[in-house]
């Protein structure tokens, strides 16, 4: 932004705590240490935060290097209000359990839809190539 208004650059986000959403749906929170021209990210002290409903759990991950193309969005974490989330933190195991359950539910739904389509004589669309969440 400084050197050319009308643009945005990750340069300004360096050494800041960011929340990064990846294409596979993961949410990472870490300090951005380094970038390159492809927006590959080096995240420091990263945690992966899993959200299920109103609950979340953190898994400390350490240092992440994220390939730029897999980033959906990222944003700066508001340090001051970080603690005031309306969400409830739960232990990791619990959240993983909840995530698994959610996944099961979602898959059941998918199966149902598929079956419904086939019943009506249509081909269910397969997203083989786009495994991404987004």
């Amino acid at each position, binding site marked *: 932004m*400084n*050197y050319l208004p009308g643009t945005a*650059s990750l*340069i*300004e986000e*360096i*050494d800041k*705590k960011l929340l990064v959403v990846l294409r596979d749906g993961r949410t990472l929170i870490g300090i951005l240490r*380094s970038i390159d021209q492809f927006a590959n990210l080096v995240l420091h002290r990263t945690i992966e935060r899993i959200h299920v409903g109103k609950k979340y759990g*953190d898994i400390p991950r350490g240092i992440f290097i994220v390939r730029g193309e897999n980033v959906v969005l990222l944003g700066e974490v508001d340090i001051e209000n970080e603690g005031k989330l309306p969400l409830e933190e739960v232990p990791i195991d619990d959240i993983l359990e909840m995530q698994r359950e959610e996944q099961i539910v979602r898959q059941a739904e998918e199966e149902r839809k598929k079956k419904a389509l086939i019943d009506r004589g249509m081909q269910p669309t397969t997203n083989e190539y786009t495994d991404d969440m987004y």
Partner: protein
Amino acid sequence: MIIKALGPRVSSYANELLEAPEEEGDFDILNDETFGDIDQEDYDWEQQTEKFAEVLGTGHKHESHNDSGFNTAEKTYRSQEEYMEHSISQLMVDEDDGDPAILRSRPIPRVGARVKVKPQAILKPHDLDSLFGPSSPPSLLDAEHLISPTSKNIWGSPHQNQAPQPTHFDNIQAIFDFAKSANSSDHHLSHHGPHSRAAPMVLPKAQTLEEIESSMLQKPRVLTAEELERQLRGESSLPPSALSSVQNGHRVSMAQYNVPPPPVIGSPQSRAMVPPNPMPGVSPGVPHGVVNGHRSPVFGGPSAMRMSMPRGIAPGTQSVPISMGGSPGKGMIGSPMVGTPPYRNSSTPLSRQSPVTPSHGLSQPIGIPLAMRGPPPVGSPFSSPQAGFGSPQGPGVIHPSPQQHRMVFHSSLNDTNMNRNNSNKYQQSSPHMKGQYFNNNNKEKFTGRGDHPSGGGHREHRYYRYPYNQKHEARTEHSPGLQKRDSKGSDPYDGLMTQRDKEWIIKIQLLQLQTDNPLVDDFYYTAWCLRKKAREQGVDGEGRDPRLVIPALARMEHKAYKPAQFEGSLGRLTTSSVHNPRQIIDLLAKSMSEQGGGKSKSNVGKELRKSRQLLMDIEKGYNILLIIEDLETKILALPEDTAYVFYAKPLLEERSNYVDLLFHYLLCDGNSAAFMQYMNVRKGRSLTRRALPLLDKVQSVGIVSLVCKNLQQLMRKDQGDEHVEELFEPCAKVIETCNLATVVMFAEDIQQEESPSTTKPIALALQNKFGSSILCTLLHRGEKIYSSTSPVDLDSSLQNEWCEFVHDFASIVATIPSDSIASPLQTHPDIMEHLGRLLNKRLLAVVEDNLDVFIQPRQS
């Protein structure tokens, strides 16, 4: 005779290469097939060799196949230096405008590949750069420079663009050294051609150092600046550790780099600066500018001072002995810096600004390419003098005062934790934000800086002063126990990305931002800028953004890029770059007329096909229109100066061509039916509407005439409010400028249209908004003409015809019930006068009532 120059050993390899010696001996190498008509020049190579042998001492001839080539090569070089230079410079035939992507970067040598030398080739002195620089074709194939900011890169890292240029001398020497090292060390490198550049990445060995030393010693006359440098260094004497620790290539180069810091003015100052900043953890003997190979900003002092002096001054101020000898290697030991890649150290030498660059010992082989690099492509942003963390030798636009200012500020800092946090402190300690660590303030500063009139747009960006808005205490929340903090609350891991890295990325990003057509590529921003400018300037005509103009101009100056051609090379060497990708397939652009002709007749009904064809035709017309409008915008965006004429002319020509094309297209050779087909389609109408203002007088009259001729049809089609009325405005404008003859013509056109029903055209027209508007406008125009020109000038026949028309009009108006008269889009009160002029009182009275519709302003 390059082969000779590179050493007789080479010729023996060439022998093996060719594998076709008919007879043993050197002579065979020069077979015409490969190397052409050397004999034609009557050059007696044998004689020459003997001469050289004499010069260099006997015995070399018979050694020719055995020695490493080092000794002979070097000496032959010395004696042949001029010839070499000449022959190298002849390798490149022609200097064309060049690929802009290439031109921005600086050349590197590509001596690894063998090229035939043709002495008759056209010579231009600066061809050397294009031949041996990063723009040279083989180097473009080497993507290594893109890998890392610290490797050689064509983007012109901020560090090596300031070597004052007795450059091509440097180049020659550097090239040759490189070539020698390549040849003598590793012959197969030369086969790699473009990738021989990879060789320098492998660190040099002892002989290289010697070579360079000797070459340095041998050639004082060439480089005055370097000469002085060397003298200095000779005096101060390279630390023996540096010289001897050859095995530690990185370190040595580092050392040498450290050794000769400021032969520049300001070193007294810098030395003065240095003492007050004793740095814990660094041995006092260490040149303070170096920590772990990074020049921390605090010690950006010396380098900053260096930077602050113009290059030209440097050679003259050699008086200051170098006090920073010390043990250069120590700076790297015992630093807490995590994982400093060693190669970074070695490349930092190259960031030296001035004459020092080519004369670094071990760094030279690496430095060769860089030494020839020019300023970074978008040099301006990086030419700001701010010495960032780790790269104090940023590009050398000189602003001494901020430098010194910052220097002073730094020296006053008594921060013990220097290593990592230097960057943070530094960045915060801009003159603007002295010692303020804040959170939300940054945002203000941010925006403030954004509007800061910093000497021209992006030229002096303060990008490295990015907001540092993390409240450090809040950091503990998320990872307790993982952070080590010092008392100030700053993160020890901050600043992993050096200033130089950031600059590199920003450079790339800026490069990506450049565009030929900002209105297309970056429309919203462009429009916003224009609007902002307009707001600032008030209503000042077109809000022309000067920044917009410049890139547009810059692009316009490029002729069609012709790829570099090499004379005397085998085959046609091709190079490719961003602007000039390899052509793999020859595709011809399909002409517009071919489109839409390929529809299969079986599937589509005739009617459908016709309508589709019609739509396609309208599309074509629309495309022409859009092109014209784009051209107009471009013309308007041109600056109003002398250059305007130059640039505007081709654009204007193009525009008029297109306008003619458009007109012909619309006119359809006067074929009313075809025109009506267009008019039937809404898009066709809008096309006409937009086109009318662009056409010239004659053309627009033609179109309006067509409209009038088909008025009834138009009106009929307008049942569903299909925007025929849109046509009115441009038509009205046209009519307003017409003379009586034309107006009469229009009137006649209207009247002469065949009317399917018994009602007269005028009557029909009156009942339609569009029609009545047209009539109204016509009458108004008539009045204007009558009132402005004396009766003498008006042609009497025309007057008669016009009078007739008006009478007809009046009579119809009188007979039609006033309800059915559609109110025109524009009413003109002077119609009354006009009618009064031309009609007699009786008729007038009859008509008067109904005329209200035409005369009273619309109440809508």
